[in-house]
């Protein structure tokens, strides 16, 4: 056989040779070309396969990395202070209901689910949500709160057990989302409501459980629908394709992009489970825009549109969220409620026809209104100005990447009610001032910071008249001359130098000529001079000449050293004009300065963060109270009494709250460019600045501008009067002269005088002078 075959082959080869010889040159050329072409095809095929494999590998790496990256990239969540509830708290039933509404609790009869409450005669029943606080998890609890005219009388659990203390869940006030603006609240598969998962499949991708990333039938169906309609009406994308599209956020409509999306979808399906893909979709899909913040995922969508956690959504609300996917702008329930409602109802019909909900549930859901919160972000409110402070505080310990991706939970000091009230007070009062004084609308700007006077924690921070706009934060960044607000520093330096509030100063014309620079001749606000008068009166009337006189007596260096002691900063202005507040400071820095007084003599850096927890609820950092005593208690008390006089008798007396027991100081700068007020009561310290961004004159003084804003704030936030504690050093002093007197013979104020012997006595008051006073009166007469 082998011999035969060899012979045959030899014959065939000989034949070929003969044919080739017969074909000649062109024949050989053609054969060579064919061979070359064949080789070329072979190599290019091989090359293409390699290229495709490489591209496939690249796609695989890209999509897998993105998928896994997104899975773990959780923006930090920021929480406000929770409202503490205890028997004796002066909180009315109505106010508690407002607080619950703010947190998205629903008032209804059935309290089976957390996040609900009901009101009866003198009690309020609530099913509190469970929450992971700094100290640990507090499970959901049903409570009954009884009220009397003073506030909460009793708190009981459903079993009748009395509770001493509990608290609401804190409002979520922001998150640190990446610079491209995507915010999300990550849900685990267990947290996804079953109806949401099934509903999504029913509406967006019926074959999700069976396909491998793409659906031929889906594409064909979309093609038919679109051809019939003559326009692109329906997309044939599976949930997996939509997920890929969402990752790369492009609206480019090319075949190449479609193919790439398809390939990536197939890769995702090969690599990850259906459950993981559906959960990723639920956490990823774009559901709307709130300013610079893109709302991604159903967890955040539930908060943004309904102000509650996803597990509290009812059937209709789930349908509404699903309806938004198709066109977050077109079906925006705030802007186009009819469209959103009609699509939601179509979705509810599908839920029913697919057997996902019962007929009764369907009927009830169809009848229910859209139910989106009236003002977007009312409860899950965002306070960009306060968040700036949180960011700046955290930047010392955490990288911005950590804040944006590690799923941290940040507990802050903000009190949302105080914040909202302060913002409202500012916006409304500025408009009222502009109206009353016929100033151009929106020409004025303002900023304010409120802190707890004892702990220094910032409770509210307003950076401009439009609170929700993430613009220039005046509370932190506006550096403006503080004017007379600085004067207590000089008075404190005097007290620390052994002087008394009743010691005289000279309010007389003065010209100072520094070694370098121009001569300076300050004037009083009204242009008059008042001669010799006690220090407290000079402060109450905010007399410039008297303060410069006192500053000169003490020495500018001593006053500036006092300023440094109180703020930890060296003054920028080395000239005597510093004494009258020619020193630029931000409202937050002014708050820091006045924190020394309001706290009774402790310097605290205003702080906004209480603790930072990681995803496993381990505390990464506790930001405990930090303070340093800066003023001796008696000296702080004396200074604060003089600041109370400013309010009762001096430049603050126009305030409706001036006689209640508040302390503070107004400030006005040259040409009325800046209007300041810094003041405190027993529990809160507030600083208000009013001015114009272009630094032009406003025509406002501290009293007519900032103090008016503070009044509006106090009206909303309440005043906690300073309690006057008896003090052995308190002496009755004639207000206008600074002499010892009593109520029978003069208009008196109570002030501490450590060295009574040096104090002159008003004649005719039947006060027996001591030996020293008798001798002095002998020499002075």
């Amino acid at each position, binding site marked *: 056989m082998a011999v035969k075959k060899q012979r045959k082959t030899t014959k065939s080869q000989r034949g070929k040779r003969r044919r080739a010889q017969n074909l000649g040159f062109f024949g050989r050329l053609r054969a060579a070309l064919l061979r070359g072409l064949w080789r070329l095809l072979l190599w290019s095929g091989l090359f293409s396969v390699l290229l495709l494999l490489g591209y496939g590998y690249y796609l695989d790496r890209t999509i897998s990395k993105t998928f896994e990256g997104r899975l773990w990239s959780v923006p930090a969540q920021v929480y406000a202070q929770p409202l503490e509830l205890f028997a004796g708290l002066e909180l009315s039933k109505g106010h508690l209901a407002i607080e619950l509404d703010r947190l998205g609790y629903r008032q209804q009869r059935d309290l089976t689910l957390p996040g609900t409450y009901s009101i009866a005669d003198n009690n309020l029943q609530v099913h509190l949500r469970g929450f992971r606080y700094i100290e640990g998890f507090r499970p959901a609890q049903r409570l009954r709160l009884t009220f009397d005219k003073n506030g909460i009388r009793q708190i009981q659990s459903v079993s009748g057990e009395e509770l001493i*203390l509990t608290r609401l869940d804190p409002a979520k006030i922001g998150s640190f989302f990446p610079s491209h603006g995507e915010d999300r609240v990550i849900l685990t598969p267990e947290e996804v409501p079953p109806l949401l998962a099934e509903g999504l499949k029913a509406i967006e991708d019926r074959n999700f459980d069976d396909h491998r990333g793409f659906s031929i039938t889906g594409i064909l169906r979309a093609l038919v629908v679109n051809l019939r309609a003559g326009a692109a009406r329906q997309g044939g994308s599976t949930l997996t394709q939509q997920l890929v599209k969402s990752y790369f956020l492009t609206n480019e409509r090319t075949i190449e992009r479609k193919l790439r999306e398809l390939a990536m979808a197939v890769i995702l399906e090969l690599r990850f489970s259906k459950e993981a893909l559906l959960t990723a979709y639920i956490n990823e899909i774009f559901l709307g825009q709130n300013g610079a913040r893109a709302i991604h995922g159903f967890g955040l969508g539930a908060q943004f549109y309904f102000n509650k956690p996803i597990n509290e959504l009812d059937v209709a609300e789930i349908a509404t969220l699903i309806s938004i996917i198709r066109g977050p702008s077109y079906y925006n329930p705030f802007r186009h409620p009819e469209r959103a409602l009609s699509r939601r109802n179509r979705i509810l019909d599908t839920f029913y026809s697919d057997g996902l909900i019962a007929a009764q549930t369907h009927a009830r859901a169809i009848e229910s209104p859209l139910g989106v919160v009236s003002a977007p972000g009312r409860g899950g409110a965002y306070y960009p100005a306060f968040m700036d402070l949180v960011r700046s505080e955290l930047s010392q310990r955490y990288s911005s990447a950590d804040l944006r991706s590690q799923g941290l939970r940040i507990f802050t000091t903000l009190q949302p009610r105080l914040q909202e009230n302060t913002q409202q007070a500012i916006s409304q009062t500025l408009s009222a001032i502009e109206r009353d004084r016929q100033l151009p609308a929106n020409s004025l700007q303002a900023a304010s910071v409120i802190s707890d006077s*004892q702990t220094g924690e910032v409770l509210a921070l307003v950076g401009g008249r439009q609170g929700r706009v993430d613009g220039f934060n005046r509370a932190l960044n506006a550096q403006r001359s503080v004017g007379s607000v600085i004067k207590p520093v000089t008075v404190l330096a005097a007290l620390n130098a052994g002087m008394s509030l009743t010691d005289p100063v000279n309010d007389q014309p003065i010209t100072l000529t520094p070694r370098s620079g121009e001569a300076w001749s300050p004037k009083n606000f009204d242009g008059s001079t008042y001669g010799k008068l006690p220090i407290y009166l000079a402060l109450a009337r905010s007399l410039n000449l008297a303060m410069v006189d006192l500053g000169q007596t003490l020495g500018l260096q001593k006053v500036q050293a006092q300023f440094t002691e109180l703020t930890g900063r060296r003054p920028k202005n080395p000239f005597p004009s510093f004494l009258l507040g020619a020193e630029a400071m931000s409202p937050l820095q002014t708050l820091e300065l006045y924190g020394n007084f309001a706290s009774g003599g402790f310097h605290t850096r205003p702080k906004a963060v209480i603790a930072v927890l990681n995803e496993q609820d381990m505390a990464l950092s506790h930001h405990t*109270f930090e303070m340093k005593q800066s003023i001796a208690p008696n000296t702080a*008390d004396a200074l604060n009494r003089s600041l109370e006089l400013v309010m009762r008798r001096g430049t603050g007396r126009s305030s409706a709250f001036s006689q209640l027991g508040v302390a503070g100081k107004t400030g006005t700068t040259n040409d009325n460019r800046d209007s300041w007020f810094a003041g405190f009561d027993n529990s809160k310290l507030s600083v208000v600045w009013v001015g114009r961004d272009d630094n032009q004159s406003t025509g406002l003084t501290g009293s007519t501008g900032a103090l008016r804003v503070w009044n509006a704030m106090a009206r909303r936030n309440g*005043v*906690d009067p300073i309690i*006057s504690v008896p003090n052995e050093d308190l002496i009755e002093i004639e207000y206008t002269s600074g002499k010892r007197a009593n109520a029978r013979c003069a208009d008196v104020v109570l002030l501490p005088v450590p060295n009574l012997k040096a104090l002159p006595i008003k004649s005719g008051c039947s006060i027996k002078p001591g030996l020293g006073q008798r001798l002095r009166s002998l020499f002075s007469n």
Partner: protein
Amino acid sequence: MNTYRLVPILLALLLSACASTSTTPPVLRDEPKTKNTPIQQPTPKPAAPKTKTSATFALLSAADEALAGNQPKQAIVLMERAVRIEPRNFELWIRLSRAHLASGNLAPATQHARKAIALADASSSGSSRANQAKAWLQYAKVLDAQGDTREAASIRRRYRQQRG
């Protein structure tokens, strides 16, 4: 003590009683009145029962448990929560100082003891001297920990007899 010295003290006590009944803080006020309502001089609300203390006491008990369980950080979190409810209660600052001392944080232990002294001075409740003694004796403990035993001993001599 002679009669002349008793009179001002009695007067001061009377004044302090008046002050404490008329100036208890309103925690929450009603929303602003309408524009047409004439502005009236606001008045402080009447005194409310002092039940904040039981709320903060509950927190202190939990903090004590945390301290006993060697969890000083948790104890500080709980005590700071109590201080947020009653920031002017000098006893809470004493406890906070103790918790920091237990954790070896001498700087806050010192400052919080000083804070307690300042607030005890200004406190209108209880015996002022007994309050001051409590606060000063905590400060003495911190001084001991800092190694300033002489000053600590001197404070103890001054205030031990006055502790209520």
